[in-house]
């Protein structure tokens, strides 16, 4: 289990309890977190679950793999901390992880 904190583009924080093994995207969808569309359901096919990972967690979350990186290249307002949340797997290590969502996924 890990607490994940989602911050929307207006700065509102929402905290959810996520299970190990589920993705940061899935935990968001189950809890109706606004700002994450995740249209393909986690197949790394659509790039609509873009988030910014809090810098303090960048090491633990790690870098995107090639497929994810090439999709991120086409997301709007990409930063060095950008990830697709469907590709971040929840573990105890990530307890307290804070991710921010962009204003739009399109």
């Amino acid at each position, binding site marked *: 289990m890990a607490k994940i904190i989602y911050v929307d583009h207006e700065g509102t924080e929402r905290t959810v309890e996520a299970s190990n093994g589920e993705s940061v995207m899935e935990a968001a969808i189950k809890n*109706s977190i606004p700002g994450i569309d995740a249209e393909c359901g986690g197949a790394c096919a659509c790039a609509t679950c873009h988030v910014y990972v809090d810098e303090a967690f960048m090491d633990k979350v790690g870098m995107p793999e090639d*497929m994810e990186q*090439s999709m991120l290249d086409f997301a709007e307002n990409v930063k060095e901390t950008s990830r697709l949340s469907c590709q971040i797997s929840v573990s105890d290590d990530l307890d307290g992880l804070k991710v921010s969502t962009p204003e739009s996924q399109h």
Partner: protein
Amino acid sequence: MDLTNAERVVMIGGGQAAAQACASLRLFGYEGAITLIGDEAALPYQRPPLSKAYMKGELAEERLYFKPAAWYEDQNIDTILSVRATKIDRSAQMVELEHGGSVSYDALILSTGSRPRALPVEGADLDGIFDLRDLADVERIRPRMIGGQKLVIVGAGYIGLEAAAVARQLDLEVTVLEMEDRVLARVTSPIMSQFFADEHMRQGVDVRTGARLASLKGADGKVTHAVLADGSELEADIVLVGIGIVPNVELAEDAGIACANGILTDRDARTNDPRIFAAGDCAARPLVHYGRTGRLESVHNAIEQGKLAAAAIMGKPRPSEDCPWFWSDQYDLKLQIAGLSQGYDETVTRGDIAARKFAVFYLQNGKLIAVDAVNCPPEFLASKKLIITGARLAPETLSDTSQSMKEIAAQAA
């Protein structure tokens, strides 16, 4: 018609479009009653993994569901499952249910989906023959997907080929039968068809095109052989049927709602009855980027029309109508499709087919209308945006791999 004072919204059909409409209605501030009537036992779930990761056993069932059961309670959404709606009474604004009972509505969303086309041959009712549409179908198929078993797949569309890939990875002996002279004939170009046929053959699938199934033979009620039109017979322990889907329009048709290969809607997903909307596989909608009406069988379409219907009911501005898009996973190949290629007059290939990393662009009168991208997300994502702007790009620019897709997109006229 102004429905912003609606007190009860009802959905018939519990798939992705219905789940999206529920979520969007609440997001847009709708506080009235929502009733979702589904003929399956399960709450709304993702269908794409059924022929991919879920079939292979790599995804737990609970991860298929869009929302947990508690969400529907929290959101005060009444779900009536394993129940079929039998009639829409438009004058009384009521939906009648099988086993009696009815639900009244101020606004109704038809998200009735589609059903697999039935196999029109003798023997189609033998044990061991399966459709691949619902969670319940996969639950029946999976225990039989055992290495060494002989699987015959009827139909080389995306579902059939995805299932073939999973079955090979589980070490079944797989034959794919396709009536047309190439795989994916209905949905893509000969270049892509050739690529996917070659890939499946390389993976050990016996791909037979121009092969018409004549009948299925069995013993003790269980399928044993597929008989082809030329008289040849193939041993079969299991047969999977993937020969397309038929939209579920009967409820709408019987109620006098206009249908033509799908329930006809306007851009707001509204039918010719202003209180009734249609979303997802069952709906035929204006394809605004293509200047025609059509029915799309896709996740993008279900989500978008679910949102459009919810927005129209709540009097919100129309959500964006994006470029249609699709995907298919087979082996380690990720196919991403943007746009609709029907009517193309030119193809441009970019990248290296042999390296299994390439894209085929489809042009019509010089305009980019679609792309099939294999392991090439940039080509897919760039095209998704370019297509809806009516972009024109020279073929020699599109195929020039010394330029990135970002650089190419910047040159669009």
